């Protein structure tokens, strides 16, 4: 194996892209044992691979099964490299509350959005699925979050998104958070109608959307 820094970064990225979720941890350990910078390993290796996977997803070369394995490869690599990060490099990043709204337990889309936002450096608080409106509200309060991200796959659950936004408003929290929504039945027009700040049609777009909203 090419044990130069460049060579190992390329290999980390390739492992994520090509879904080698077992091999990736060995490569990450090799990279770490050579004393190379863990931040580079994460950003230029693992996250680079995830971004390339996202491109294939946008091009409909990859679909959800592929993205899920790529992301578990990324997380397996992160598990090795994260403990090596210097403490002071932990900045105070933007906090995002994410969840699938009440009545729905389909959480794959939500998980993909979470993965892509985490790769982009945001801190995610995942409320899971079938989340009632007041859980979103209390999480925003407790975590002092700046963004709320909601999803649903079921058209019959869409209206709960409106209820979450209304609950945030009545709790006096609406102005402190940006609300973004997504999911198969959601449209930009729907997002606007319920008073969300943004809509994205895919996990990769969600990253750009959040960047636009919170700068």
């Amino acid at each position, binding site marked *: 194996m090419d044990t130069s820094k460049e060579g190992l970064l390329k290999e980390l990225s390739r492992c994520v892209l090509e879904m080698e979720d077992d091999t990736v941890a060995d490569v990450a350990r090799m990279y770490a044992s050579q004393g190379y910078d863990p931040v580079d390993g994460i950003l230029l290796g693992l996250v680079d691979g995830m971004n390339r996977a996202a491109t294939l997803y946008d091009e409909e070369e990859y679909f959800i099964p592929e993205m*899920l394995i790529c992301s578990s490869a990324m997380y397996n690599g992160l598990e090795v490299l994260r403990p090596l990060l210097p403490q002071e490099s932990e900045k105070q990043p933007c906090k995002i509350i994410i969840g699938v709204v009440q009545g729905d337990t389909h959480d794959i889309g939500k998980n993909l959005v979470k993965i892509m936002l985490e790769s982009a450096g945001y801190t995610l608080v995942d409320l899971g699925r079938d989340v009632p409106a007041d859980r979103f509200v209390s999480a925003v309060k407790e975590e002092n979050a700046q963004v709320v991200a909601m999803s649903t796959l079921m058209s019959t659950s869409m*209206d709960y998104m409106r209820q979450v936004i209304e609950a945030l408003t009545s709790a006096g929290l609406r102005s402190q958070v940006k609300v973004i929504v997504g999911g198969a039945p959601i449209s930009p027009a729907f997002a606007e109608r319920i008073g969300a700040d943004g809509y994205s049609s895919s996990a990769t777009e969600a990253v750009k959307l959040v960047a636009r909203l919170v700068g």
Partner: protein
Amino acid sequence: MIVDEAMEAANSFWPEAHCDPQKMAALAKVMRQNGGFENYGVPFCMTVEAEAMGAVVDLGGAHVEPHVTYSPLHSSGEADRLTSIDLTQGRPHCVLEAIRMLKQENDGVPTIGNVTGPVSVAGTLVDMTALLKEMRKSPETCVHLLERITHELIRYARAQIEAGADVLCISEPSGTGEILGARHFQTYALPYINQILDAVEAPVKIVHICGRLHSIYGLLDQIHCDVFSFDAMVQPEEIRPYLGSKAVMGNISTHALGTMQPEWVAALTKTALKNGVDIVSPACGLPVTAPFQNIQAMVQTVQTYKRTGS
């Protein structure tokens, strides 16, 4: 597909009506009488099969549909731990009883027996994320799981037809082109949907697949159904050429039916008819808050269109 006003009118409410054949049949009937639906359809959720095979279901409430809260399998490799659907008790029995009651009305109204698609059932019996990964990493166990589930769904679907259902409708919210892509759809969704369609003798067979479909347009004609139903984001005129001789069913926005004025629903319905929809229906279920007015607007628009051609 049930709305609030139907529960009031029938004095039969969710969640009880998911488990009581009389209440279930009463709700289906009132959707026709007061709403204008030209059929009876049961059940009202997509969790009956998974629950009967070992999943834990929260029946929800008056406004929340039943949903699976616990998947019994960690992996598709555990398929043999699934229980067989017992058609003599629980909710499968309730659905069959409701179909019998609706049949006894003997009023010429067709009854639709709804069956959840194999991949969607699989995705609630195994955690969906694990299942999707295993589609790539462990094809043999996924195939075995889907065979096991399909075997059960065939028994359940046949029992529905024997109980008197005139139409079999298989819906796949999870086994879609958008989620799986064409290759996995062809391996894991299409063959098992077809196995059910081939094994069940029903006068009319409908298949509904959610989401965007362009990645699997080329495969749709291979589905052995008479009627193909799809979501609101798919344009009827775009999909029609891929459906061969199948009737085109859909696709009045579920959300519009729930929230918009009846005039808007009527306009959407007219557009759908003009764009080649043969059978008008809500695209992807009905929000429980949808007013009867909107369903009536949809149905009346169809009837006027049939009469006058516009």
